[in-house]
């Protein structure tokens, strides 16, 4: 296996673990803030995965997808932030 292939598969395994952790935080997260942060992290994980798939398949198209997700992930984070301000984490629901 080429060195690059090895790195890619290893990275894939690491990212898979990260996804599970973030998913757990998203579902269990005590407060809404945790859940929003986990969703934002999911976006970032998507970027990394897209990049890895680009590496694995050698198609540059997936790298562009990664860039697109980056743009949109960021916008989502801002949108969630403004929504989060409206909810109150403790009462577990909108005011």
């Amino acid at each position, binding site marked *: 296996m080429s060195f690059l292939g090895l790195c890619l598969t290893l990275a894939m395994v690491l990212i898979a673990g990260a996804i599970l952790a973030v998913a757990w935080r998203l*579902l269990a997260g005590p407060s*809404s803030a945790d859940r929003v942060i986990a969703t934002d992290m999911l*976006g970032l994980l998507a970027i990394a995965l897209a990049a890895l798939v680009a590496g694995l398949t050698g198609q540059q198209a997936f790298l562009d997808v990664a860039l697109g997700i980056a743009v949109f992930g960021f916008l989502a984070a801002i949108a969630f932030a403004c929504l989060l301000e409206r909810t109150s984490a403790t*009462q577990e*629901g*909108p005011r």
Partner: protein
Amino acid sequence: MLALPILGVGIAAVLASLARPRIASVVGVIAALAALTVYLTQVSSVAEGLIPTAAFGAVPALGIAGGLRLDGLSLVFVLLITGIGALILLFAEGYLADDPKRKRLVAMLLVFMLAMLGAVTADDVIVLFVFWELTSLTSFLLVGYKHEREASRRAALQALLVTGGGGLVLLAGLILLTMAAGTTSLSGIIAAQSAVLADPLASVAMVLIILGCFTKSAQVPFHFWLPNAMAAPTPVSAYLHSATMVKLGVYLLARLNPLYQEEALWQALLSYGGIATALTGVCLAFRETDLKRVLAYTTVTALGTLVMLIGIAPDLSITAAMTFLVVHAFYKAALFMIAGAIDHAAGTRDASQLRGLGQVMPVTALAAGLAAFSMAGLPPFVGFVAKELIYEAKLEMGSAATGLIVAGFLVNAATVAIAVVLSWRLFAGRQLVAPSGAASPPHDPPLSMMVGPVVLACLGLMAGTLPTVLGAVLIDPAVTAVLGRPADVTLKLWHGFNAVLALSAATVAVGIVLYLLWERLVPRLKAVSLLDRFGPSVGYEHWLAATLRLATRTTTTIQHGSLTGYVRTLVLVMAVACLGMLILRGGVAWPQGGASLDARAGLGGLMLIGLGGTVLARTALQAVLAMGLVGFTTALVFLMFGAPDVAFTQFVVETLLVVILTTALMRLPIQGRDGRSRQQKLGDAGVALLCGVAVAAVLAAVLASPFDPRLSVWFGAESLPAAHGRNVVNVILVDFRALDTLGEITVLAIAAFAVVALLRSNRPADPAAPSPQGPLA
């Protein structure tokens, strides 16, 4: 050429609706007379048997041949329609002199005349049906002319529903007929008699058509709408409900007679149906004192007799039918107009309150006398000729028709009695008995109202004295049309002393006796409330009320207003439909050759985790975010299986969905806790599971069926050379299937309008907010 009168009457109707009332009536009369003359010019050619035809209303795209045809039968009807129509319009001018809106009635009468002319000359089944329905529609408008009165509105609706319903049944029958004969032209269908009769559904088509005609011609089970339609103004009753519209059913039966005349079912249905109607009509007539209702019931009787005559097949009965048709039109229209004149002059139509009008209304008395004698069938009048023929036809049938003869005798006797009531009882006698309420003492109505009855009565007399002329000119071609083969018709007033003459003499005698009993019979018959409780009109009321109840019940069950209810129904129907189709079509299949399970299967696990999170979430916000995880995993699936475009779209859509849902949740008054009862939750869980199973089954079936690569191969090959693009997905969207995408973006635009409108509608219009620039802000 044949279309000319129809179009002419149509134009006159338009002019009449625009012009001033008096001019409207004049225009109407002129148009009717013009049409009459046009048809009169055809009489000579039709008599020699050459039948003019004209193209009209052909729609090749729908396979409708169209066309008009004027044979003997149509000629008789057409002359009646235009002739009596002119007299009625003249009568209406006098009768409604003080009604400012009468031009609307004149216009509607002209439209009705147009419809009738079209129906009787149509040589195409569909054109005939269109005009048939137009007559029902115009009769609804005419009967409901005095719409401010509840009674006339109800009568109009009843007439429309019964005749309209009959029209539907007729359409079904006609379509079956066209399918069997392969053409929509009437003459073509009659020519293709063997094919039509051979068709398995022939008898079904025949029964349907007979039902349609029975509703139109007020035969027994459907007769109740005719007396109620007397709520219409008298000119309408005189025109529609005596001479023309109700005879349309008889016309169609006569028109299709050459097709079905040998059918036993046809003969049975028509003869027994006809005689039953005649008897009921006479019995009910004896329970009424209102002039118009008596006349209505006698019309029902006359229609019954006509249908019966068409039913019994020999040539003579068809001749009798045609003659009686003309005779009845003459005297019934005249009597209706006379009833209108009496009502106009004396203020009431109740026969029991009126005696000795002759002294003050001599001309009306004369006309009434002549018409009544023709109705009674006394010698010098054409009524006598018709009755003789009826008896001759029945006698000729010999022993088979004893029942018919007895019933016919009774019917004729009663008709004689009523004829005497309408003439002698009303007008004879010294002292004048009339309700004092009338403004001025009863007097002869103005000239315009007298022309109609007098002319018709004289026609009855003239036709009676020289029947051979009537026979050769009108009846002979009509009979040949109805029989489908030439028949020699000799109408003569005097048949010499024989059984028929004895029979008619006896009828007159019994009639006089019945007249004498009339005074006592009416109240006693009226007391018999049995008929009121179980008659067909009661059935009609129940049926109407039941339909309304059903309608309200279905609406309330479907539009119950709860959003979750709607969603539940939507999802349930989709699931049941998918599963049902799969199970029925045996499509349930599991893809063979299990997919290679590699790391990517882990995504399925992640999705299940997300699903668990969504289901167990305590608040709506948690559920939305957990659902976001499921969406994210779907996007990963696309990414891992090498679809960059779709993966990116899924990410973007997923994020937008979660953002929008969260914003919406901010607005909704959703408390933290889920308010549904345990039982409701289980129900919803069941629906959700069923939907999941259905979608999974569909997907499995799709996977199991062999993948047909032709399309993707073609697109792959074509995308670069033809559309200069390597991104096949986008090329398909933008180039090959551009029209679909155009449709989609239009839907998007419409959705945007809807969302903006919705969101803006429930926002309080606070003046502070800057008013949006222009309508579409």
